[in-house]
Each structure stands twice: as structure tokens, then as C-alpha cells.
């Protein structure tokens, strides 16, 4: 069944849209990430203009992360105080990102920048996760008892001025690194159309030493708030949010996420992380190849101001 998307101005198969929403939702439920880094490239590949894809996926990420954030909130596993700082700084980062997005679009290098951004970011994060999870799997094989790390040592930047006490996370640290992390996530997220959960979680764990039970919930809340702001920013600055496209993806995504979350119970943490690392590395290699391999057609044409 075809459905006409009024902002993208093309008609697509309804079941295809709900299907890819569901498939990516399944993965996001499984790994606890937003899934934007998979959905945006998939949509662009299916012929949706890049700006519409990036802007509409932000809406889908909000929906996918909301149900998770709510259930963590009910369990009291969100540090609202910490999330507030992250959200405020990431909204500033996001508005800078949306402005840069417009600037790159006018110079014609948006496509290159998105490819390079995904390549570097996903390649880096994917390699780190892969190394860490393979080590954990090998240790378990060798019979070493793996304890969850209790990171309580401080880094130099924890002692910067403007220290704030985060009661829930049992932290007394400077807000400067918190704000810098929020700013970076907001900037990258709005530029690449990704929630940034897979960067934020390691950053909270390894840089800020946030306890494990608070990490996922706080990161989900931050993603919801930031992506909601980004959706509005995109809607105002480029009018490229397609509500019907976003809705089709949301419906598939929320249903898929539930099945993904229950499937995740059958896999151990380090196995999940290894699978996610493979996925992230795969997407990054795909972007890398598109930069290195000779394109099928060296010419491309687009209406100015749309499609990069």
C-alpha cells in the first residue's frame, strides 16, 4: 500500500516504512540505543531527500526513547539533576548543529561531511566497544570472575571549578565536563540525525563515573529532550520534518523496541556489546567505502536547497 508523504513529496510503501521502523526499533530495544544511526542512512538510500530523512528520524528517536525513559523513571533510575545540565547544554549544541547543517548544505559538502562524520565517529566507538567486549568474553571463557566495574577514582577534570553535588549519582564533580559532553552530543546529534546514546553512555560511564544503574535512564531522558528540541529546530529552520514519515517509523519502532528488549534478556551484556560493535563498525565501513570506492556515477543533480 502506497502512502504519499506530503513534505518529502513522494509516495512510499507504508509496510516498507513500518517494517524498517520495526527492524531498527528491534535493534534499538535490544541494544538500548536510539537507532538513528541506522535509520537515517536507510531512508536516504531508499530515496528520501537527506534533509527530510535527518529531520524526520529525530521525531522517531523521540518516540523510541520515550517508553524506555518512562520505565526507568518509574524505577527511579534517572538522575534528573544531572540530566537537566546535559539537556540544557545539548540544546545549545543542537542549535549550533542545525545552523552548521544549513551552512554545509549551501556549500555542497553536506554529503561528504555526513559520510566522514559517521566514518570517524562510528569507527572509533565501534572499535572501542569491540575491543572491550571481546576482552570480557575471553575473560569469561578463561573462567575469570568479571565484576561490574566500580569506577570511583577521579579524573583531573572532576576537580574543575563550579562543583555540583549530584545526589542520585553520588557524585560531587565540576559541571564543566558535563556541559562540554552535552554540547558535543547536541552538536553531533543534530548534524548527523542520531540520538547519540551510544556515545553518551560510554561518556557517562568512563568520563563522569556515573553509577551503572543511573546511566541508561539518564541517557535516555537526555536523548528524548534533546531530540524533541532538535525536531522543533529542524521544523522551524528548514520545514523538512515529515510528520507522516515520522509517524510510520514511530509505530514500527515502538512495537519493534518492545520485542527487542525482551530478546535482549537471552543474551549476556558483553555478547550484546560485541554484536552492537559489529553493527556500528559495519555501518562505518559502509560509509568509508563510499568515500574511497569510485562512485557509480560521478555526476549528481539536485534541486538547490534540497538533498544537499
Amino acid at each position, binding site marked *: *500500500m*502506497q*502512502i*504519499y508523504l*506530503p*513534505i518529502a*513529496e*513522494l*509516495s512510499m510503501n507504508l509496510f516498507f516504512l513500518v517494517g524498517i521502523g520495526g527492524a531498527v526499533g528491534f535493534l534499538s530495544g535490544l541494544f538500548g540505543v536510539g537507532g538513528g544511526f541506522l535509520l537515517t542512512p536507510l531512508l536516504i538510500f531508499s530515496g528520501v531527500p537527506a534533509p527530510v530523512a535527518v529531520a524526520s528520524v529525530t*521525531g*522517531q528517536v*523521540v*518516540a*523510541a*526513547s*520515550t*517508553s*524506555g525513559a*518512562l*520505565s526507568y523513571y518509574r524505577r527511579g533510575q534517572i538522575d534528573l539533576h544531572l540530566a537537566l545540565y546535559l539537556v540544557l547544554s545539548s540544546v545549545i549544541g543542537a542549535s549550533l548543529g542545525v545552523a552548521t547543517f544549513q551552512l554545509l548544505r549551501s556549500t*555542497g*559538502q553536506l*554529503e*561528504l561531511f555526513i559520510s566522514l562524520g559517521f566514518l570517524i565517529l562510528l569507527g572509533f566507538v565501534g572499535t572501542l566497544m569491540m575491543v572491550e567486549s571481546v576482552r570480557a568474553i575471553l575473560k569469561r571463557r578463561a573462567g575469570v570472575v568479571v565484576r561490574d566495574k566500580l569506577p570511583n577514582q577521579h579524573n583531573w577534570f572532576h576537580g574543575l571549578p563550579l562543583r555540583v553535588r549530584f545526589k542520585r549519582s553520588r557524585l560531587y564533580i565540576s559541571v564543566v565536563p558535563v556541559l562540554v559532553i552535552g554540547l558535543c552530543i547536541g552538536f553531533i546529534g543534530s548534524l548527523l540525525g542520531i540520538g547519540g546514546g551510544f556515545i553518551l553512555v560510554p561518556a557517562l560511564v568512563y568520563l563522569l563515573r556515573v553509577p551503572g544503574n543511573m546511566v541508561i535512564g539518564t541517557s535516555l531522558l537526555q536523548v*528524548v529532550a534533546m531530540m*524533541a528540541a532538535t*525536531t*522543533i*529546530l*529542524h*521544523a*522551524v529552520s528548514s*520545514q523538512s*520534518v515529515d*510528520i*507522516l514519515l*515520522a*509517524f510510520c517509523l*514511530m*509505530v514500527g519502532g*515502538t*512495537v519493534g*523496541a*518492545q520485542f527487542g*528488549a525482551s530478546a535482549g534478556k537471552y543474551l549476556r551484556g558483553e555478547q550484546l556489546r560485541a554484536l552492537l560493535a559489529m553493527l556500528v563498525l559495519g555501518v562505518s565501513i559502509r560509509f568509508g567505502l*563510499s*568515500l*574511497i*570506492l*569510485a*562512485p557509480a*556515477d*560521478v*555526476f*549528481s*543533480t*539536485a*534541486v*538547490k*536547497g534540497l538533498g544537499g
Partner: protein
Amino acid sequence: MRALLALLLVLAAPLPAAAERLVSKVSRDEVAITSSYTGETLTLFGSIEPEAGSTAKFVEGPFHIIITVTGPTADRVTRQKSSVFGIWLNTAEAEFAHFPTLYQVLSDAKLSDITDPVTLAKYRIPLISQAYATSKAGWWNTIAFSHETVRLMEKSGRMKLNEQGVVFHSDTFYSAQAVVPADAVPGLYIAHTYLFKNGLLIAEKSDGFTVRKIGFERFLGQAAQEQPLLYGLVCVMLALFTGWLGGVVFKR
């Protein structure tokens, strides 16, 4: 004074029987984009008749018809990638101002058999002439990029030359089918019909039709343009609600 009147009378006298006029019509003057819209086929038809006021009872051919269908225009940019230190990136580009988003040429015979290239170029009939006419680049880039742009537009179905697109059902009655694709840009479309006889243009006529969103699709498109803040807020509310509902239904 009398001489002037005589001259006027001579000028106003009916022209020789060679004068023909073109009567043409598009099957619909509006294509409505609804949620199930996947493109539409329009029939363009018409006939060749003696000029109004002419004493001739019939017209004599053979006639040739060329119809151009032109969609709304938009600024277009074509880019060329090349390898810089092993990385492929856009290095050259050419812009086209007010380039049609859709351009189809339908005719009943090969364009080169109907008339000479100079006449075709004069009326901007060939696909490539649309690119030449709108190019903002220098002459070298205009030639190189115009050919590539037309090739890409043909590949995506937005430009088309169909030299069997017009069918004559009798000596003077013709019809043609124009396809409005699924990704057609809403706006005013012009179907321009040229009537040729012995390689000379003897009549032409323009018919218009609009492609527009109606109902819900129109409402959404307008809301996004005119109330972007409200539209963005509604998107976010919808997302939050869907996420919440998903959580409630599945009780995670």
C-alpha cells in the same frame, strides 16, 4: 482617407486557405494529490481545423504535432565528484536557474524529421535546450554539465523524449498521454502544443493544469510552511504520545 480604408479592407480580407488553427485540451485541469496518490496519466488531445472565418472547408496536411509538458521550475545544481588524495568528493558544480522539475516532449515523428534543428532550438524544444537556456555557468561547464544533467533527469524519469508519444487517429485528430510521476512537484504545469507543416510552425497553443495537494496532505504541507513552530511541537507531542502508548500497551 479612402485609400487607407481600402488598404484596411484588403488586410482584413480572409487569408488564403492555408491558415489552420489548433484546438487542444487536457483531459483534466487538476491532478489532486491524496494519500494514495502514485502518479497520474493525462490525455492531451486536439484537432486541426480551418482558421475561424476562413472559407476553407477542410485543412490539408501532412501535419506534425510536438507537445512539451513543463512542470514548475526550481534552481538546480549538478555536481561532479573526483578523487582527491583517494577520497571522492564534489569538486565541480554548475547551477541552473529556474530549471523545470519535469519536462516531457511528445511528438508523432522524429523531431529531426519534423523540422530543422535551428527551429527546434528557437522554441527550446529539445531536452538539452532547457539546460542550455537556464545555465548560469560559463560556456565550457554549460556544455559538459548540461548533458550530464539531462542524462540524470532522464534516468530519474523527470525528463523524457517520446517520439511516438503523439498518435494521429485521423488526418487532423490527435491524442497523447503525459505521465505525471509520483514525485511530481505541486504547482502549475504547462502543456504547449506546436503544429508543424512542411517543417514550418503554423500554429501553437498552451494549456495548463495544476498538480496540488488536497485535504489532509494540503493541510500538513501548509502547516509545516506557515506554522513551523506549532507543527514541530505537534510532531514532538505525537512522538511522546506514541512512545508512552507503546510502553503502556506492552507493559515493559
